[in-house]
């Protein structure tokens, strides 16, 4: 495409100048990534000069500001995983079923009415969801379960699931729509019901896209901050893996909520608590990055290609 019919000295100077400017702008994204990794690495390394890696990775008590301080990350990691599991239990099936409804059952008019509503759902700020959980959902749950605490995992995970359903639904729907009509018709031609066509032909054929939407949804839940901070409470404690249901009605603290707590307190730049912020952030970053990369690989490598 680069047919320069006229070679003008000033013109070409401007040409390469503009190209250089745009290249620099594109390069900012690389610099951002390097910046994130460097900031997290440098401060985390600083943190490990004061707290042993063993205490951080294997410790069972998280108390960054209240003495005696302790920086065991397990309560936060277990809190995050527990919360994420609860969210996934609601959001993944609901998101997938919503996607199936939109692509297989809903007519064009119904679909064009529901899609914008789901987009609105995804566009509402997470603080609003947190408030909604704390002020409306928890009291509602209390009428059913009197023992529920003011801050609890259940209502936080319900609202975060509502937030994530549109993401899961829209990516799954794209995958389901990519299954060619001829496969569905072949199924119908064999005389099976629409339910069988959907569950035995359409869903297996779009499995890679569905799984990548699931992983992306889980990654979003792990990184979710405000709703779980407001409604889930700020009590760093280990979840008893043998009595999982019990913890639903009690407060926990996720990694993100712990970061907000430190960020809100007036810790100074050279304190251990300040540096622990970056160690937790780094853990969070590694978890979400791994999930996002896995999701991309599954999507690109295992996607069924139809012409």
């Amino acid at each position, binding site marked *: *495409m680069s047919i320069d019919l*006229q070679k003008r000295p000033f013109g070409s100077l*401007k040409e390469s100048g*503009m*190209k250089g400017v*745009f290249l620099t*702008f*594109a390069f900012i*994204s*690389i610099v*951002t*990534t390097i*910046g994130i990794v460097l900031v*997290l690495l440098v401060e985390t390394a600083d943190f490990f000069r004061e707290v042993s890696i063993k205490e951080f990775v294997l410790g069972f008590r998280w108390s960054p500001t209240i003495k005696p301080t302790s920086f065991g990350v397990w309560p936060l990691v277990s809190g995050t995983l527990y919360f994420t599991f609860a969210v996934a239990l609601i959001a993944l099936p609901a998101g*997938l*079923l*919503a996607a199936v*409804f939109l692509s297989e*059952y809903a007519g064009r008019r119904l679909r064009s009415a*529901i899609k914008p*509503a789901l987009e*609105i*759902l995804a*566009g509402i*700020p*997470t*603080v*609003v969801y947190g*408030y909604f959980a*704390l*002020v*409306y959902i928890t009291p509602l749950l209390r009428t059913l379960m009197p023992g529920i605490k003011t801050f609890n995992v259940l209502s936080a995970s319900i*609202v975060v699931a509502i937030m994530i*359903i549109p993401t899961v639904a829209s990516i799954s729907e794209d995958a389901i729509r990519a299954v060619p009509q001829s496969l569905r018709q072949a*199924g119908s031609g*064999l005389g099976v019901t629409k*339910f*069988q066509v959907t*569950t*035995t032909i359409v869903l*297996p*054929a779009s499995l890679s896209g569905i799984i990548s939407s699931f992983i992306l949804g889980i990654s979003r839940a*792990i990184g979710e*901050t405000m709703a779980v*901070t407001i409604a889930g409470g700020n009590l760093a404690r280990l979840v008893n893996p043998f009595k999982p249901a019990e913890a639903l009605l009690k407060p926990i603290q996720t990694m*993100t909520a712990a*970061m*907000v707590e430190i*960020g*809100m307190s007036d810790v100074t*730049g050279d304190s251990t608590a300040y540096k622990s*912020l*970056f160690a937790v*952030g780094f853990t*969070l*970053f590694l978890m*979400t*990055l791994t999930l996002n*990369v896995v999701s*991309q690989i599954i999507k690109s490598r295992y996607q069924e290609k139809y012409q």
Partner: protein
Amino acid sequence: MSRVIRESVLSSGKDNINSEQLKGKLFLALCIAAILFGLLALSALLIYVFRDAVGWLNWQFITSPPSRFASKAGVYPMLIGSSFVIMLVAIFSLPLGVGAAVYLEEYAPKNFFKKIIETNIANLAGVPSIVYGLLGLGFFVSFMDMAHGTILVGALTLTLRILPVVIVSSQEAIRAVPDSQRRASYGLGTTRWQMIRSVVLPESMPGIMTGTILALAGAIGETAPLIMIGAATSIFTAPRGILSSFSAMPLQIFAWSDFPGDDFQHGVTPAAIVVLLVILLAINGAAIYIRHRFSKNRP
């Protein structure tokens, strides 16, 4: 694939057609329930919040600073703070995002380097927003030694946060410009930059603006990154310039959300949420308007 189909068809005996139809109906009911769950939650949220905001949301609420007393509380400083930050984010992110998109679509050869940048952008879009807050804190505040909690630091942090979204949507808009128009421009003897300036950018501007505006709407709701860079959750005077410390609407909602007292929980906080939602609605409306206004003029 084909084996799966054959097996399932063979196994679905001919004698239990009725039970298959029942299963189908149950499945459809589940699908509808899943959709209704989201839609009902949305309606409930809007209905409750708007109902509770009635009586609290008035001119005095919009023009007053926050207060310990619910009847005197307002959101004026946060409204100004949010507006300031978003304007700065728009000024930073539009040229940077569009420039990067122009490079990737119009200049970059299809090679390894381009692929790295695009993969990197996709990954950046998936980084949790609170990590961008750490970037802002560690880089702008600690390393560059900028004062924490200022509008400038907040805007720079949020710019980095939304840049991946702006770049990707701008790329899509630029890609939608037909190649024939580029060739026509070259045929008139223009250079590449002249072609971009007079053909690609004007043609793709509605798409670029729509994508950017929606990204800005997302930035208005961001809370966690602003807490990380040390923005106040509540402030009594409106910021005067880009180096003033500030607070934003979602931060104030966060601060008020667990304020004790019914007046705050069921009055002041919903009123602040309605203000935020109305701003978001207006921004989304603007994006939709731009999309329609400019697509109508097409032949």
